[in-house]
C-alpha cells in the first residue's frame, strides 16, 4: 500500500460510527470477519488500511490476518473505485460471444487498465466473473445497470450516458 493512498484516506465521523455499529452487532458472531468487511466496504466504498485497523482493534483479529483476507478475495478492494463502476463479464458465455473485444474497447476509450480508475474518479473498470446473465451475453454492468446483447460498437453510446 503506497504512502499516497494512506494520506488520501478521508473517512468521515459518520462513516466511522456506522462501522462501529456493524462491529458491535457482530461482536459475538462466530467467523464474522468476512461479513464485517462486506459491510465496511459498503460504507467506505473500499477497504483502506485505516479501516482494516479499526476492524482489527475492535475484533482482536491481528491486522496481518485481516489484510490476508482482504487481499485474498477478489471483491475486496484496497483502492477507491470510480463513481461509476464498470464491470465487463468475462464468463465463458460472454467470452465466446466477444466480451474480450468489448473490454478492449472500454480500455481504449477510457484509457485505463483493468482494476484502475480514471483520473477524474468518474469510471473504474473491472473484468468480472460470470454474473449469471448468460442469456443476455455479452454483458456489462455499470453500477446497478445491466447492458446486454452488446457489440463493441455500442460502448461509446453507453458510456456517453454517464
Amino acid at each position, binding site marked *: 500500500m503506497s504512502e499516497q493512498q494512506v494520506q488520501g484516506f478521508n473517512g468521515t465521523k459518520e462513516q466511522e460510527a456506522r462501522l462501529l455499529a456493524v462491529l458491535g452487532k457482530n461482536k459475538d458472531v462466530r467467523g464474522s470477519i468476512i461479513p464485517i468487511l462486506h459491510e465496511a466496504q459498503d460504507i467506505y466504498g473500499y477497504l483502506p488500511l485505516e479501516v482494516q485497523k479499526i476492524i482489527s482493534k475492535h475484533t482482536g483479529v491481528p491486522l496481518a490476518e485481516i489484510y490476508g483476507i482482504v487481499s485474498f478475495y477478489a471483491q475486496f478492494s484496497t483502492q477507491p473505485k470510480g463513481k461509476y463502476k464498470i464491470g465487463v463479464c468475462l464468463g465463458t458465455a460472454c467470452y465466446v460471444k466477444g466480451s474480450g473485444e468489448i473490454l478492449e474497447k472500454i480500455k481504449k476509450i477510457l484509457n485505463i487498465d483493468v482494476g484502475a480508475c480514471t483520473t477524474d474518479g468518474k469510471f473504474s473498470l473491472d473484468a468480472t466473473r460470470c454474473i449469471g*446473465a*448468460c442469456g443476455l451475453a455479452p454483458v456489462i454492468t455499470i453500477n446497478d445497470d445491466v447492458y446486454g446483447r452488446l457489440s463493441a460498437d455500442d460502448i461509446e453510446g453507453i458510456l456517453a450516458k454517464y
Partner: protein
Amino acid sequence: MDMYRAHVLVCCGTGCTSSKSPQIIDSMEKLLAENGLETEVKVVKTGCFGLCARGPIVVVYPEGIMYTHVDLSDVKEIVEEHFLKGRVVKRLVASDEDSAEIAHSIQNLGFFKKQMRIALRNCGMINPENIDEYIAHDGYAALGKCLTAMTPQEVIDEVSKSQLRGRGGAGFPTGRKWSFAAQSKGDIKYVCCNADEGDPGAFMDRSILEGDPHSVLEAMAIAGYAIGSNQGYIYIRAEYPIAVERLRIAIAQAKEYGLLGNNIFGTDFSFDIELRLGAGAFVCGEETALMVSIEGNRGEPRTRPPFPAVKGLWGKPTILNNVETYANIPMILLKGADWFTTIGTEKSKGTKVFALGGKINNTGLVEVPMGTTLREIIEEIGGGIPHGKKFKAAQTGGPSGGCIPAELIDTPIDYDSLTAIGAMMGSGGLIVMDEDNCMVDIAKFFLEFTVDESCGKCSPCRIGTKRMHEILEKITKGQGELSDIDKLEDLCNTIKIAALCGLGQTAPNPILSTLRYFKQEYLEHIVNKRCPAGVCKDLLSYIIMPDQCKGCGICAKQCPVGAISGEKKSAHVIDQSKCIKCGVCMSKCPFKAIKR
C-alpha cells in the same frame, strides 16, 4: 380468497430483471387498475422460466400464452387487447423458429417439450417471495412427513434408495454422504449448502434460489433432521444480489411460520439457517475451502481425509450439498425413491439442469432427464446454432471440465458417459461453440481463469497452471514448437496427480480434452502458424483478393490505421506492417473481396 380470471406471470430472474421486468410489473398493475381490471387479473412476480434468450418473458394463465421480448411499450397493448378485449397479441407470442404457427401454450414450444422439471418445478410458477405459494405447491409437506412419520434413518434410506448423486459436479451419492455424517459422533453437526456457483457460464443454482428459495430451505431442514443437526449455513456468491435478497425473505417467512426455528411442526426438532456471502474466490466452491471461508478465513482448501462428514465446519461433522441437489430432496421424499429411480439412466437417476449458453439460439435454463443426448439438447431444446453456423463442440464442467466434439453429439448425457469421453457433468454449464471458436484459445481462456483463481497454497497448481498458460500463450502467438505438446501433456498429468484440491486436479482438463479431440488445430497453430477459426490475432492476416476488388475505396476509408492504399477502380492492397487486424475492412467490403 380472491378469485381472478387470469394470472400474469412476469419473470423476475436476473436476466429478465436486467431487461426491466420489474418496471413491466409496475406498468402492468397501473394499466390494469386504470382499466378497472385489478380485481380480475393478478400480476405475479416469478422466478426464471428458462428461455432467457427471449426475455423479458410474460406468461398468461389459464391459457399458458407466453409473450417474449416484451418491451415496456408493449404492456399497454397486452392489457387492452388481451385482458380487455380477449384477443391474444400475436406478434409477441413465442413460436418455434421453424413454425409459422404460434404456440397456444408454452407446453407446445420445442424448448419445453423435451424438458422434465423436478429441481425447477416451481421456477416460473410461483412468487418466490411468498411462502404461501410454495406451500400451495406441496411446499414443506416433505419436511412435515419426515418429522412426523419417518425416523432419521428412514429419511437417509429413502435418499440412498433414490440413488441421487451430487449435482455440484463430482456426482457423489447423496445418501451415502448423509449416512456418514449421521454415523459421526458429536452433539453439534452442521448442514451446509454450496451456492458459490463459480463456473463461468453456469447459473442453475442462482435461478433455483431466485425462483424457489424455500425448496432449498426445506431440504436443508430435512438433512438436519436426518443427520442430527440444528444449524445450517448457505454460502452464496455476493455477485447474486437478487438470490441473496430472496433467500433473506424466505428465511424470515419460514421462521415466522414456524417452519424454521424451534420445535418445527410441534416436534422437538429445531433448525436454523444463516446466510454467508462469498467475496469472489472461485476456490471457495471446493468443500474444505468453503468451510474455512465460512469460519472467516482465507478460503484455502485443506487435505482430506478427514472428510467433512467427520471433521468439517469448526471441526464438527458437516454435510455440504449443492443447491440443485437440495432442490430434488423434497420431491424424492414426497413421491418416493421408486418414482425417482424410474427417471434417468442406470447409474444416473433423475434429471439435470443445464445452463445453455454460447452460440445457441435458445440460451437459458433447461432441465432434462439423465440420458438425454447432446443432440436433443442443442437441436431440439436449444433451437440450434444461430446464423446457420456449424456446431463444433460443447463445453461442460467449466474450467474443470472438457469438451464434447461434434462427432460425439449423440452421447447420452449422464455422469459416466461424460467421464468416459473426457468431459464431465460438472455443475451444469453447457457452452456451445461453433466453427468461429478456436479450441486452443478456449483452453487458454480456462487456464487464464485457473491461474487467476488458484489460491496459491500448493505449488503444482500455483506454478503448474501458470506454466501451462504460458505455453498456450506461446502457441496462440505463433511461437509454439512441436515439443510444447509433449510438455503440456506432461504437465497436465503431473498436476492432476499432485495438486491439493479439486481446482488444481481438474485444471488440466480443458487442455487434455481439446488435445484429445482437436490436436489438429493445435498442430495448425504450431506447424503452419495458422488459426483455422480465425481467432488468434497474431496468426491472422487480411488480404484483398485482386480479382474480386473493384477499387471502390470503402475499405481504405474505414481502416482506422490507414493501412490500405490503392488507385480508384483498381485493386487495393493492405500494408501488413500497419494492419492491426481489426477486421473492419472485411466486414465493410461490399464485394466480399477481403479474406483472412
